[in-house]
């Protein structure tokens, strides 16, 4: 079960970050320091029951990625709070944490460690991961030599080994070629079954319609609505056509 209460996230814009210490101190002394605020999320609240699948839709820059980061625990909200019962696995950017100069095998361990797996777990699951990713012959090849399709297959294979209570997904369902996509979708369904609560961000409305039980629509950081999948998707589609 997840409870999101009046969550707001504020970003800071302006020349602040590029100017360096010297200029910062000068501008501050002169009172010329420009700080612009940007609320990526404003008072977002929703509630997901155990075993449900919530979809989040919205156009670019609507705050979808930010809400996922908050849910994943990467970014604490500026205001408001989040309550989540159980273990959270967040698959945001699948490629993060891989190192080009290490081999595929070494990267499985590194990425597994970053995801919070134990060494024994990675050891036990290693064969399955490699088999699933169809990269058996590339085990000792440097990661940077892999094609982008191979990279995302590997990333998905590592990340999808867990069965968390809460699963946070950002557009990860569509990786690799057709055959792999089918395989990964089957694996995703497997992960979602058995009482897993899932939150999914997707640009593919058909995917959302197919999978989600409930949909939140965000626009410019604010909630346009929450409700059953069909109503919300229809509303969003109409808005997008305008």
């Amino acid at each position, binding site marked *: 079960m997840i409870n999101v209460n009046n969550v707001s996230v504020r970003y800071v814009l302006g020349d602040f970050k590029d100017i360096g210490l010297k200029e910062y101190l000068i501008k501050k002394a002169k009172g010329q320091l420009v700080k612009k605020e940007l609320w990526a999320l404003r008072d977002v609240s929703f509630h997901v029951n155990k075993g449900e699948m919530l979809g989040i839709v919205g156009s670019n820059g609507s705050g979808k990625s930010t809400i996922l980061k908050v849910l994943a*625990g*990467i970014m604490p909200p500026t205001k408001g709070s989040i309550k989540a019962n159980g273990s959270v696995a967040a698959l*945001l*950017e699948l490629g993060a944490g891989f190192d080009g*100069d290490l081999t595929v095998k*070494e990267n499985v361990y*590194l990425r597994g*460690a*970053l995801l*919070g797996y134990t060494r024994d777990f990675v050891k036990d699951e290693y064969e399955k991961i490699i088999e699933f990713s169809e990269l058996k012959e590339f085990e000792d090849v440097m990661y940077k030599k892999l094609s982008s399709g191979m990279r995302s297959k590997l990333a998905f294979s590592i990340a999808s080994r867990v069965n968390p209570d809460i699963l946070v997904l950002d557009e990860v369902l569509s990786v690799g070629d057709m055959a792999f996509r089918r395989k990964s979708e089957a694996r995703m369904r497997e992960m979602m079954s058995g009482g897993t609560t899932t939150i999914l961000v997707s640009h593919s409305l058909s995917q959302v319609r197919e999978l989600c039980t409930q949909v939140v629509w965000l626009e410019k950081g604010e909630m346009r609505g929450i409700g059953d999948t069909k109503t919300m998707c229809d509303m969003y589609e109409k808005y997008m056509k305008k």
Partner: protein
Amino acid sequence: MNLVKLYKRYKFVFAELVKRDFKKKYKRSFLGVLWSMLAPLLTMLVMNFIFGNFFGRTQEYYTIYLFSGWLIYQYYNDATNGAMNSLMSNAYIFSKVKVPKYMFLFSRVASSSINFFLTLVVYFVFVIAYKLPITWKFITLLYPVACMFVFICGIGLILSALFVFFKDIQYLYSVFTLALMYATPIFYTVDILEPGQRWIFYLNPLYYYVTYFRSVVIDGVIPALWFHGAMLAVSVLLFAIGCWMYKKYNYKFLYYV
């Protein structure tokens, strides 16, 4: 705070990050590791050749004297610079994966420490070659090394927090470390200053580590108790400031876009 639990939870990711840094640095070659031992050796020989003629006349075992100073300084320089960059250069990871950011910092300091121990091996080869007596007192060298590790982590926490906001810190810091090199009696001896002015060395934390090494290795004397106390106090203080800054700022920069 449960340190054991934290350790258990994160030891795998810590080990993997250290491995990553280490493998990248040495490009997985034996020559790479050898090179990291050879580089300080060559620098040492050059410095010994240049400065030995000036200071070697008054200072016994000048080569060891010089090496002790260089060893400590290089460790400090490499580790703090690495630590400063550690948050920024791994930001693309922890903005997507939930993992404590300090792991990247500590693992970077740890891989510098491994490097330091490799240099230490060369150092002891020199100590033996110069026929200095190896005694049980050498065990006490672990004390300055431990203090230094804590000290470096503290400095690293402060620098990395500043670095994410102010990119020019790295230039300021490289000027600072250069000044620090000259302010530390590495290649010259302390009698370059009048006895009344030497207090200036006492303000420099590196002075304590360097002096400790020289005292034990060259003179066979363990420094006084107050010396130990001063080292500990400075390390713990800097570490505490570092932790406080980390706690205050470690999330903040995620919001600066």
